[in-house]
């Protein structure tokens, strides 16, 4: 375990990557606003959530440095997300069926 290097060099990002991601986030925001105007029904919701998920992934990976952290952190995030998603699915077993 890497407990010994708790003060070790933290992977540094250049300023540039952050600006790039920011531009990407703005672009995605534009996409999601534009799509909302076009009424595809259920697909609009799915698209909106998909775009939001991509944006969140970028924030997690680059801004929050999840990409540079130990594997443990990534597993943690997966555990938390799984808990939410599975609870959500089970909850809907009560609402999407008679």
């Amino acid at each position, binding site marked *: 375990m890497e*407990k010994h290097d708790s003060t070790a060099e933290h992977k540094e990002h250049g300023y540039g990557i952050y*600006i790039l*991601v920011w531009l990407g986030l703005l672009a995605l925001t534009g996409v999601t606003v534009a799509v909302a105007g076009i009424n595809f029904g259920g697909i609009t919701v799915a698209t909106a959530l998909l775009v939001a998920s991509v944006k969140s992934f970028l924030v997690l990976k680059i801004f929050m440095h999840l990409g540079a952290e130990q594997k443990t952190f990534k597993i943690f995030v997966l555990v*938390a997300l799984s808990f939410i998603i599975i609870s959500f699915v089970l909850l809907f077993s009560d609402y999407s069926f008679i």
Partner: protein
Amino acid sequence: MNAQEQAAVHVHRDDVGARMGMWLFLFTELLLFGGLFFLYSVYRFVNQEQFHIAAKELNTLIGTFNTIILLTSSLTMALSIAAIQRNNKSLSVFFQALTILLAFGFLINKYFEWSIKFHHGVFPGSEILLNKPKGEILFFGLYYVMTGLHGLHVIIGVVLIAIMTRLTIKGVINKDSYVKLESAGLYWHLVDIIWIFLFPLFYLIT
């Protein structure tokens, strides 16, 4: 100093552990809002038309503007950490202050949004709201609770970052010790992520 006092002076430091603690705390925040997102999903599923109609009363422009503000504040927060990593104290302080400014911008927008709604008589318990169809009442109930709770977290974030700004100025946060700033940054990014989901769900379902 005797051996015991000497040992006591050496403070245990674990940056990875500190970040781990903050990530775990973020999960609790995610789940706190998660419960509300569950509510939103069920009620929207059952009241699709009325959610549509109610959402029209929200101003998409202000919502989009607020989204851009928050995304930019995440950028400035990330840049403040990159700056301190490069020993650029004043730049880091600048970016942190900018983050706080943007956060205030967000809050001011929110304040105006809510005021307009209140002015139109659309708030929990109001006569106008109670006369609307049930789905719309639910929509606005969720709107106020979710954006309200989110706004509360923005305020907490502002306080946290302000503390970090002070610590950076004093030199407590520096090139060799900046995990506090990283933790505050993590918190702030989560506040941003929550808004990333709130935005389409309330403003873009027309």
